[in-house]
């Protein structure tokens, strides 16, 4: 499984390494890396939940 790099790396170097790793594995870059977290508006609504009104 994919592990985190053990040492902190520069973002630029990290992007390059990830691109190279993906290219090596799949021939071309499979997917692009994104930032830390998506904007809230982009988050997909989950299935299977219900509203719950608190008592009192």
């Amino acid at each position, binding site marked *: *499984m*994919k*592990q*985190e*790099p053990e040492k902190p790396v520069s973002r630029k170097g*990290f992007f390059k390494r*990830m691109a190279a790793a*993906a290219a090596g*594995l*799949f*021939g071309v870059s*499979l*997917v*692009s*890396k*994104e930032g*830390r*977290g*998506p904007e*809230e508006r982009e*988050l*997909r*609504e*989950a*299935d*299977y*939940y*219900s*509203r*719950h*009104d*608190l008592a009192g």
Partner: protein
Amino acid sequence: MSKGKEVVCELCPKFCRIPDGTAGDCRVRVNLGGRLRTTIYARPSAVHIDPIEKKPLAHFLPRSRTFSIATAGCNLHCRNCQNWQLSQRDGAEMEVRFRAEPEKVVAEALRTGCLSIAYTYSDPTVFYEYTYDTARLAAGKGIKNILVTAGYINRKPLAKLCKYIDASNTDLKYFDDALYKKHSDAGLQPVLDALVTQKEEGVWLEVTNLLIPTLNDDMAMVRRMAKWMVENLGADTPLHFSRFFPQYQMRNLPPTPEERLLNARREAMDAGLKYVYVGNLHGHPAESTICPTDGRIVVRRIGYHVPEIRIKNGRCEFCKTPIAGRWEL
């Protein structure tokens, strides 16, 4: 916490009550303004091509490769988790997080010649929507779908997902509810129910039991588990006894002795299971599939390598006994 903004996640048996602005126990399903959202949809942190034998699946398209994806998060918290860097984090904590919409995953699986997509490593339960959308798309393109899961999911969402799932390796970690609670923050009965649901829905099912010294290697427990499997899943259901290695928060126990694994295998076969394997014991003969009638090896395995398959049209080449499984597309 404001009234009316709390939600209850009904995906897994934990039924987390999630106040606005916080996440459920899995870390990746969050309540934002009274709507539950998944933070890891189409954002896997692990993308690999694996031999299907690694899942492990012994009776499903042997020698094929499976396109394997996982996101951060898990609804279990096993003290011995081997992928804890992935499973015990939320998406934002991951240094590696790709963007891969279902269309991209399916396209790459096709391009790389994989016969299946495996939803694995952490647990597809917590990336349910991503798994569902990808599996539905893949099924339409002739790609098989595989769950590798702890099976801690409610019946309704599981049954819906199973329409697009071809095979599953589901963990049966402990045949004991107290052990499930203590070591995985889960429970036994929902897992048993999930196993039965998958069987009923026509998913090819294999079961893995990680045999941990002093915790679940009691042979009476192994017997009870195997007997339950025979009665509820059928004697043809493969069972994998996997060797434990100390890691994460369970470093105080030794690796499972080989003899213990083989004892468990013997107990399970005595209880009536036809196909019982040992895992993490590289090169052992018990990795291979043996015809239950004539005792000859019909699928020879050495780790993930499969040098010999003697099954034709789903039957032992030697004595023509049917060997349960999905051997060809």
